[in-house]
């Protein structure tokens, strides 16, 4: 056989072999993980049971209408807490990011300390935050606010830092060359340029925090998460369904508003 042809065959066979190997490894890993967790793949085929159950039980009925007042109140509260936590965290994060960004920092050690700090805040599970805070601050909105605040602070600090670093050293040096002071460089040169990017991060975090607020509420016994748990555990499924619907409504609305703002910014 023509040696060149053999080379082509070898090339395709090698590619195919690599792909098959990856698939086999993933397949084995899947089987191993299922075994380790006790997950039965065929339960995926029963997903429709869940949907059917959801439709049967979660459709809000006449009785659940009475809960609407309480639900809407809690929903609004949850939204406010999510927004407040994000805004406060954004202010703190901007401050930390300006001090810590490699292109602006006074000492590279400061940059690494802030980087490490933000990574720590982000990676401590929200469950741990919620629980520690619950112990000290008891069952109230402040607990949920602080849990969201710490997570968001860690996340946004990192995001803002990278945004500032992407802005580049040259532009900052060019501004400094005009004789601008440190504060002038930041407030007149840097911030107006990256405002759109920062804004889109904040909007994204608000969206995310509205969703996470439900989880935090569930853990700390506050807000919309708490009343869902309450209705769900006491088998008042109609009311629980109303909670789910209202959460969908809130999240989708926030997403739409944030898309609208994003479009105005583009």
């Amino acid at each position, binding site marked *: 056989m023509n040696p060149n042809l053999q080379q082509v065959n070898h090339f395709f066979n090698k590619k195919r072999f690599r792909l098959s190997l990856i698939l086999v490894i993933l397949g084995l890993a899947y089987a191993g993980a299922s075994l380790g967790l006790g*997950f039965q793949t065929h339960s995926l085929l029963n997903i429709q049971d869940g949907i059917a159950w959801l439709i049967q039980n979660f459709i809000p009925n006449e009785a659940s209408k009475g809960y609407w007042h309480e639900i809407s109140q809690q929903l609004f509260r949850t939204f406010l807490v999510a927004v407040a936590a994000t805004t406060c965290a954004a202010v703190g994060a901007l401050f930390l990011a300006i001090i810590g960004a490699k292109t602006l920092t006074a000492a590279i050690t400061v940059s690494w300390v802030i980087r490490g700090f933000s990574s720590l805040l982000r990676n401590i599970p929200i469950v741990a935050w919620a629980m520690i805070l619950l112990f000290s601050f008891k069952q109230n909105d402040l607990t949920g606010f602080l849990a969201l605040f710490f997570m968001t602070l860690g996340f946004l600090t990192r995001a803002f830092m990278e945004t500032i670093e992407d802005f580049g050293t040259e532009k900052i040096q060019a501004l400094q060359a005009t004789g601008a002071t440190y504060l002038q460089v930041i407030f007149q040169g840097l911030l107006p340029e990256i405002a759109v990017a920062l804004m889109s991060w904040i909007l994204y975090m608000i969206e995310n925090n509205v969703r996470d607020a439900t989880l935090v509420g569930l853990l700390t016994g506050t807000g919309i998460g708490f009343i869902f748990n309450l209705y769900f555990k006491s088998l008042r499924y109609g009311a629980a369904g109303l909670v789910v619907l209202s959460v969908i409504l809130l999240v989708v609305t926030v997403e739409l508003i*944030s898309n609208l703002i994003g479009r105005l910014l583009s």
Partner: protein
Amino acid sequence: MIKPENQISLPTQVPTGPRLTIPLRFRDRRRITIMLTLLVLAYITLITLPTMIPSHFKLGAALMSFTENIKIMFLQPHLTNTTFLTLLGALGQSILLAFLTTLLGSVLAFFFALASTRRLAPTPLVLGIQSLMAVIRAIPTVLWVLIYSVVFGLGADAAVVGITFHSVAYLTKVYADSMDELSPDSIETMQAMGLKKGTIIRQAVIPYLVSSYFSWTFIRFEINFADAIAVGAAAGAGGIGYQLFMSSSFYFNFHEVGVMVYMILAFALVLEIISYRLRSVTNQ
């Protein structure tokens, strides 16, 4: 790892609806939007903050106890009610849960994404799938797990299905967005050569997609790990999250919580190193 979701939530096209009566200049529109948004956010925050602090609340005492607990957690971690091996097993459970749901989610989402990208699918299908996914995404993962734990019974099946639901919805969106960003040229070229749809997907779409597919899937794995912990705690679905919940809200043992948090942080560090490596490989 920085999550580039800001690309997702902000479509770049300018709306083609009716024009404003006063045509604002481009930069002005931006500035006004930012100013107004900041004002609204500041207003909401300022009216909310005072109402959050309950009456008869001793902020000082709470802060004292909080710092004390943080100190216990980070400086004096040790175990009393459980063994390190048990916790390691629980952490393993959470990692397996995150892995399994990411794998399932990425495979299913790939096909949904093919059916919901403007490059390949008809508009009604695109809109239909995208709206469905938006609704699924709007429901927090914990609620999905709670709902399925009633149908399937509390356990692995409910946790896997619940987290997978959210993963599929999220990944479908980001995969479809990456497909939308592909240049139409290569697909058009393949059509000009008379290739069939399956062939075009395999030979023209997938080769360009591989790297973003991997990075998004990895990001989702990180999210799923966090979700696995949260679900374990809030829905009693096992794993390190459940242990965390028990130690903190039943035994009030923050020494133990400290150990678990350190374990989770160690794994997060591993993930961060992997993502750093992945980024430097793909940036080459």
